[in-house]
């Protein structure tokens, strides 16, 4: 929300204005930041506790200790298997026949009979293989690793047995070792991990708090900046700037309502001031008109009587027949004098009428009905122009002085007729409601009023016509202002001028 008028120009000033922080903004922003950051202290403490408790749950010392013993358990398993295989090899050796042929069949049967025995070989002292047998089939449990078992035989010979052991044991051992080492590492770093979680949590919270504070500051700034602008506008108003306005924006909150109310108040003050100024000016001109009328009117009658006497004397004089040329000259002069006196008399009448405008005595009325009455009781208007009346609203209750408002309407219609000369005028009358005003428009199809002259057309004695006194529109405006209304002139769509009278609705 920035003052709509009179704002300092220049990009640097706008930039400085954006960076400027008012005390109000500072207080709200500080409150927001405080509100956003205070809970973080407790949150950080809780984060530390949560991390500690989670680590305690996940890193139970018994679990860590048991995990560390898993490889040893596999070691025990391997030892047991080795002892078993050694015992089985010894059992095979005990039944080994002394001759090689029978030994081969015996070993084949043993390979088939003894679980996990893949191969058995009777190796003589010199290294020669006396008999051997090997399981040709696939291993019992898929992947396997060899587990040798050797039995010394009498005479220096030996029985080499190869058993199978599940390779998955070794994979499981590797995985268990990896997991145990990882858990032990995590356990060793437990305190540091807790601190890192607190730090991470704190960093995230601070980041969120910064974002929240930033958003809060922006949001607060939208309000505080509007309030600051409003304060500035009030100061300018106090300094006499009645043109100041503030932009209420698109919000519907209280600040926007305050801005709209401020604008309306400033408009009303400005209009009141304009009205007072205009009326004071008109009063001055009315005094001038009164004096002029008085000063002009006083000599007119003696002048008129003197010439009438002169004319009467001439008509009864004998010289009339002697000098007919003088009689003709006197007649022409008398004609001129009477015309000019008549003109001066009309001028005096208009001045007097302007100077003696009565006070407005408003009465409740409907503007639309008033216009209907005016047209019905003013046949000269319809005789001089084609009149079109459009009433956009059924009810337009106002308070008006019928006599004076008739004068207003008559003056405007006369203006419209004058504007259309030498052609026949078309007058467009309209009655409508606009917010808290009843609006009467009087439009013509004349040449319109130049934009530069629109402000001056309501000044007394200002006229663009050869024969006008320039008082008609001044009288109109004074009467309208005395009704609490306002009048403007503008272009009529389609050509011509349009006068808009706005009167307060009652």
């Amino acid at each position, binding site marked *: 929300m920035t003052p709509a008028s009179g704002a300092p120009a220049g990009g640097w000033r706008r930039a400085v204005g954006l960076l400027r922080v008012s005390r109000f903004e500072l207080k709200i922003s500080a409150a927001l930041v405080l509100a956003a950051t205070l809970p973080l202290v407790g949150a950080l403490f809780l984060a530390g506790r949560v991390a500690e408790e989670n680590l305690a749950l996940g890193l139970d010392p018994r679990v860590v200790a048991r995990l*560390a*013993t*898993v*490889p*040893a358990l*596999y*070691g025990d398993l*391997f030892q047991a298997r080795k002892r078993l295989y050694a015992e089985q090899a010894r059992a095979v050796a005990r039944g080994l026949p002394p001759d090689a042929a029978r030994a081969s069949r015996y070993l084949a049967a043993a390979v088939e009979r003894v679980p996990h025995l893949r191969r058995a070989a009777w190796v003589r002292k010199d290294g020669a293989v006396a008999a051997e047998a090997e399981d040709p089939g696939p291993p019992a449990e898929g992947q396997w690793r060899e587990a040798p078992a050797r039995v010394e035989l009498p005479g220096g010979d030996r029985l080499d047995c190869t058993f199978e052991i599940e390779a998955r044991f*070794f994979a499981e*051992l590797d*995985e268990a*070792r990896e*997991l*145990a*080492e*990882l858990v*032990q*590492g*995590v356990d*060793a*770093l437990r*305190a*540091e*991990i807790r*601190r*890192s*979680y607190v*730090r*991470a*949590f704190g*960093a*995230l919270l601070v980041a969120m708090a910064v974002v929240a504070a930033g958003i809060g500051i922006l949001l607060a700034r939208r309000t505080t900046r509007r309030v600051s602008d409003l304060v500035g506008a009030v100061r300018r108003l106090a300094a006499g700037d009645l043109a100041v306005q503030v932009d209420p924006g698109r919000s519907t909150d209280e600040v926007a309502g305050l801005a709209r109310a401020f604008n309306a108040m400033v408009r009303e003050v400005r209009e009141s001031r304009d009205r007072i100024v205009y009326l004071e000016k008109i009063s001055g001109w009315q005094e001038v008109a009164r004096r002029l009328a008085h000063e002009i009117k006083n000599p007119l009658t003696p002048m008129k009587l003197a010439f009438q006497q002169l004319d009467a004397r001439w008509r009864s004089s004998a010289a009339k027949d002697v000098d007919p040329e003088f009689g003709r000259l006197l007649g022409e002069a008398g004609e001129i004098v009477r015309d000019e006196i008549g003109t001066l008399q009309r001028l005096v009448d208009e001045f007097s009428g302007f100077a003696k405008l009565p006070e407005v005595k408003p009465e409740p009325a409907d503007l639309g009905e008033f216009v209907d009455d005016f047209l019905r009781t003013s046949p000269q208007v319809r005789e001089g122009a084609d009149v079109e009346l459009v009433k956009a609203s059924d009810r337009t209750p106002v308070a008006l002085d019928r006599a004076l408002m008739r004068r207003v309407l008559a003056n405007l219609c006369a203006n419209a007729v004058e504007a259309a000369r030498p052609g026949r005028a078309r007058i467009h009358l309209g009655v409508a409601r606009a917010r808290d005003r009843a609006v009467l428009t009087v439009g013509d199809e004349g040449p319109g009023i130049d934009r530069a002259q629109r402000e001056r057309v309501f000044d007394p004695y200002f006229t663009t016509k050869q024969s006008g006194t320039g008082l008609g529109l001044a009288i109109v405006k004074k009467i309208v202002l005395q009704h609490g209304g306002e009048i403007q002139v503008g272009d009529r769509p389609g050509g011509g001028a349009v006068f808009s009278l706005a009167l307060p609705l009652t």
Partner: protein
Amino acid sequence: MRRVRSRPRAPARLTAAAALAALALAAPPAAGSDAPGTLPLQLAARGGRVVATVDLATAFPASLEHELANGLTNVIAIYVAVIPAGGRQPAMLYGRVVEILFDVWDEKYQVTVKDPYVPQGVRLVLPTFAALRGFLSQERGLDLGPVSLLPGDGFFVEARVEVNPLSKEQLERTREFIANPAAGTRAQGGSRSMLGAMASFLLREPDAGADVTLLRSGPLGPREVPGR
């Protein structure tokens, strides 16, 4: 000598970088710790470089077998430094990381030794804990640096042995686990959380391992470096 606690750890990346070693050696002993133990050592000059052989047996007691034979990857970081008399900052130093995995099937120790000269590591298999202990205790041929860097006004040699220190690799694995816990358990479709990712990012390396043994030689001088 002091032993605070024992804890198996994940395999370590090479952490024997000079700066890290310097920091580790410059780190003050933990509160309440005992005075450093005595470090038996031999120094020699070979090819213009100071080579040390240290006996770290006291840092590897027999009771350590239970820990080192647990089937998990254990890491031992060894830093040896020459510290000028009256000073704290090492004038020369050497660091190595030993990764030990006891193979529960073969019942042997698989050892990988990494140092600045062999960052990818040298692998060997030791059949028993006694062999492993002997290997760890007798650190031979430790290249401390050029002879010219030996403090002329006297010095002492300090060894720092950390059992299962927190390594950068372990820190990275933990960070990944925090950022994506489901992936750590090999579950399908693990998802990363913002809080976890931030916590992972903000996870700092803790202080140097608490399971530290410090050994220190007596005062030495340049004359005690044969071949110099």
